[in-house]
């Protein structure tokens, strides 16, 4: 597992996201920050399925070393169903807000 240590900027969060994605995407070795755009969607564009979302969330949470980030609020709709998809931009925003609350 690749490691980085700080989470100060959006770019650093994006790097954590990328590394967490590489943890769960088979054949994802070619992912780089440049290939992840704000509008890139985890499901439709990167092929993540619901379980991958969860694995990804777990990996990201561990990488950010900030304790539980309540990804449930991001990935689960109000009616309890799993969110269809999420964009990198929304994910990065969520992480930033969650980290600021810490």
């Amino acid at each position, binding site marked *: 597992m690749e490691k980085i240590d700080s989470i100060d900027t959006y770019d650093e969060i994006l790097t954590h996201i990328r590394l967490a994605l590489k943890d769960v995407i*088979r*054949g*994802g070795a*070619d992912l780089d920050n440049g290939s992840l755009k704000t509008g890139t969607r985890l*499901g*439709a564009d990167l*092929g993540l*399925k*619901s*379980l*991958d*979302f*969860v*694995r990804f*969330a*777990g990996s990201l*949470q561990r990488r950010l070393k900030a*304790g*539980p*980030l*309540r*990804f*449930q*609020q991001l*990935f*689960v709709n109000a*009616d*309890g*169903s*799993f969110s269809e998809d999420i964009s990198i931009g929304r994910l990065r925003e969520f992480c930033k807000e969650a980290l600021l609350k810490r």
Partner: protein
Amino acid sequence: MKSPSTDIAIIGMDCIFPGAATVSDYWANILSGFDAIGDPPPSWDPLPFYDPGATPETNDRTYCKRGGYIEPLVQFDPMEFGIMPGSIDGSDPEHFLAMQVAARALADSGYDKRDFDRSKTSVIIGYGKLGTTGMANAAYHTAVVDEIIKVTKFLRPNLKSADLETIKTGIKARLFPFTAETCPGLTGNIMSGRIANRFNLQGPSFTVDAACASSLIALDMAVTNLRMNKIDMAIVGGVHANVLPGTLVMFSMLGALARSGKIRPFSAEADGTLLSEGVGMAIVKRLEDARKDGDRIYATIRGIGASSDGRGQGLLTPRLEGEALALSRAYESCGIDPASVGLFEAHGTATKVGDATEILALSGLLGPRKTELPACALGSVKSMIGHTIPASGMAGLIKTALALHKKILPATLCEQPNPELGIEKTPLYLNTKTIPWISGGKTPRRAGVSAFGFGGINAHVILEEEITSEANPIRHITGSGDIEVFAISAGSKNELIDTCNSLLGLLRTANPPGMGDLAFSLAASVRFDELWRLAICASDKDRLLAGLTTSLTKMQSPSCVSFSDRSGVYLQSRPLMPDGKLALMFPGEGAQYAEMLRATNMAFPKIRSSFDEIDRIYLEHGKTPLPSQVLYPPPGISKSSAEELQKLLWSNEYGLMLVQAACEGFFSLVQDLELAPDALVGHSGGQNFAMWLAGCFTADRDTFNRHLLRLNTEFIQAPVEENARLLVVGGGDPDEVMAYIKSIADSLFIAMDNCPNQIIICGIGAAIERAMEDLGALGAICSAMPFQRPYHTPLYSWKSPAVGEYFNQLAELFTMQLPQIPVYSSSSAELYPSDLDEIKRMLEEQWEKPVRFRETVEKMYDDGFRIFLEAGPRGNLCGFVNDTLSGREFLALELDVMTQPGPLRIAQTIAQLFVNGVKINMTRLHDGLDRRRVSMPGSGETQAPRAKRTMSLKMGMPIIDTVAFKNVPPLHLADSDRHAPETGSGAVISGIRRAVWNAPVRLLKSVSCCAAVCSAQTGTTNGEALAALILGVSEKVKFSTFSSNPSRANEWLFGRLAAKDAVNQLLKSSSLTSLEILTEKSGRPYFMISDGNGAQRRFLSSIAHCGKVAAAIAAPEQAGLLGIGVDVELRDRSTTDLEESGFKETERALIRSFAGKEAGQLVLKLWCVKEAVAKAVGTGLLGNPRAFEIVSFDASAGLAYVNIDQTLSAHAKRPVQAYMGFEGNLAYAVAAVHERF
């Protein structure tokens, strides 16, 4: 006499339609919803036929030029058909396209190489004479060119006969040829005769003109002849290969064309039709013969009905009774119930009255809708290709025959159905989405095709699928975008690199092999004892080239022994097999999703047939809606119906059946590929299915499915806990999550332990709400399952009456035996034991026991399983395996995921199975697809095909090319004056002398100005022609007001020409038409001329005429200059009247005292002075020349002073100075008015 009811088979087809050069392109376009409508091809550019403002009265322009044009696709090799290339141009291109498509259709049927009774084979083609290129060309040669010469002679009377002959010859040389050789190509019926001639066919061959119904009427004639045994086979077609401007204008005048440029039958936005080009051909013969001869049968023709409208509202207005009669005659002819038809390919022209009449006719045939959901798809291929008029019936027939053959309901392009049509009240739905045609009915799939023509001719054909006893091919190809697996094995890396390089070379040759042929050939060549394996998934040559290039690049690295590229390229030299084992996994309920396997079911007929089966069972049990309707809801249904279907998708009654149909389909694919699993494993309800596949239940598929339906129905009735909810829990620290769940074990149950990152818990009411909150705080992600059945918990006890009864019946229905393939139980995380009683007990109890899938996978890994292939929808189980075995060496592969088209996913999985050493027969993917082995480079077997010498066919209208005039000397307007300005247009108007006029310029020293004069040199001037050359748009409008007075018109024109010549001297320009002369309120002319930087500059002007002479002066607006004036008179003009009426007594005395006998000439010049001054001040003489009084003059200096009556002009403070003189036969005067006056 009632016709014999012999059914007729369609055994071959091909076509050229907009956007589709072949029938496979056509079908691929239909499936992808490709809108092939566009603008006319570039060859139309010279034609001024288009005016968006054209009205029904405009008989030479169309308001719509968009349509379906095939010219870019048309290439023809005359030598292939023994036709002399010299006879092509100038003939109607339809002849050769018909020949080409007929030959391809015959080849498609296989009878290009097989013997058949040619003496009893007909060619019958629907073809209407709406104007053709060849006949237009003939008209040009025989009449239009002569008319052009006549006009040229009128415009250029000085041209000699030899010049005119040169022009004529030049024009004709640039037209298409019109020779004895082209004559056959101008005769409609020779189109069919030519085909009969080429293939030596001696059945009756002819063309049929029934307007838009031509193709189907041609088919009717062929079918009749076949049924009466007059012929044994027929080539039937429809041809409309050339939309011409005249046809467009005709439909424009009728208001039938879509102003929107889109053709959308039955749509709320439909605003008319669009014309298009196309050729379609089908080979038909008696069904009995076709079966006996082993022909491939696309579809069977069961019935045809035809009618005329009789006395309707008009020849161009469809009549409901006429259409209804054709429909009813078709169904009566064969006794088929219209309700059994699943697809209507409508005529659907997108005209308001046409669409409405057709829906009324169909609703009359079908009656009102009696069920919640519509049962019959409605469509029209015109939404994609436009209206091919006589070929339109064939476009519909080919589409529908393919729909029946491929079992697909193709989409029609429509954003919103027209609510005024009331389609929702009929059993029809406008099918706007391409979906698999799943059918479990007692009757074969059936479809109707309609074509209704101008003049009131109607036809309807009933088609039926051919159900063969032979196995279906594993997959259908669309001809475009089909994913192929290109598999290569090699004994070493270098050998693999060599093969890749050879393939690159082969693909880069002028005639590369077809992708399907190449994939098949490679699949047939692979060796499983060779460890270096590469597989590339690609749909076309470019992607394959990219895959090979990527592979070669990566393999350059010495350390590269394997890679897996997300684009579908896989290399492996250390395969998981044969040392590892392969397991097939089957999911249970919950794996279903809306539109599951849509693309897969269209591409893999055997997979689709599993869904046919469950539809059949539901139909037999009288259950509605059908599973296929739940899976693929008909477009356009109400929101409440859609929501109800979505609920049913997650119901016990439908969910597991749909999942199982998918599993069964995938298992059949696995079997077809000859893949042998080492074990099976099912998840939840998938366990029953795994055991059935393993042979544990000795029931056939039908019995098992019926049993499953009953089981599910009874489950619904089981008294299970209503408040139970299932929660998916993932993420967070697994130990923390598990500790929490165990802490409240009295109210929460673990239903499924799927993998480290997912467990399913079940709880009652508030407990589950609290768990969701608490687990979320631990960083877990909890989501609700879309159903509430508490499977795999004590709440679902086998002791419940329904479940207990089910297992009692299970024992009665099935004989059980030990599984023939090892099966792992996800309840025990072990293999099922070799004890039938124990197996029964485990199967019964599994519903109240948790699923231990994580442990099962761990166990299987420990037992040596390394490849886990999920043969079911969605791919959840692969996710569980990936999560469970993360970090270890294994492969989990899905045959379906929600985010990827099914055929691509299947191809990528097959590719990965291959590179990992799984023995799989990839050649089976090509069964029934007529593949040919490709010889690899260097094998010495490659035989280059004969190089085709294709040529374009001359489509569209002949063009008069002005190059014919190139040897005619350019004719200047003032061709006798070297100093005359150029016309700038190279125009050819004779008899006008134009000259720079320097005298007034010299006299008016205070003004920077220029002057010009022009005069007619011949007796007659063609005003219209001159106007066209020199006038701007608004000037032309003004000119048109002189139409009743040609001499005034020419005088006015000459004045304009002189003024423009004058200002052009100032501008050093030669422009005429772009210089428009404007007029002040007073009538004084002026120019406004752009300086090129957006600023406008004003130029003053004055114009004078006399007889056939005009003179003008122009000056740029300059400080203090208020106006300029010029006048001319013929020197020999009588002055008696002028002296009397135009001069005061004091003026006359002054003249007489000075001029003596020369007084007459002086009067003339001074008259000009008055006129010039009056123009310069901008008033004109106002009928009162005496108001402009000559107060003094110097005849020898040509100078005069004029006092102006103060009531006329504010400039009358001082006398105005003017200059006068003679120039040739003219007297003239010029004046300039300055502010200082």
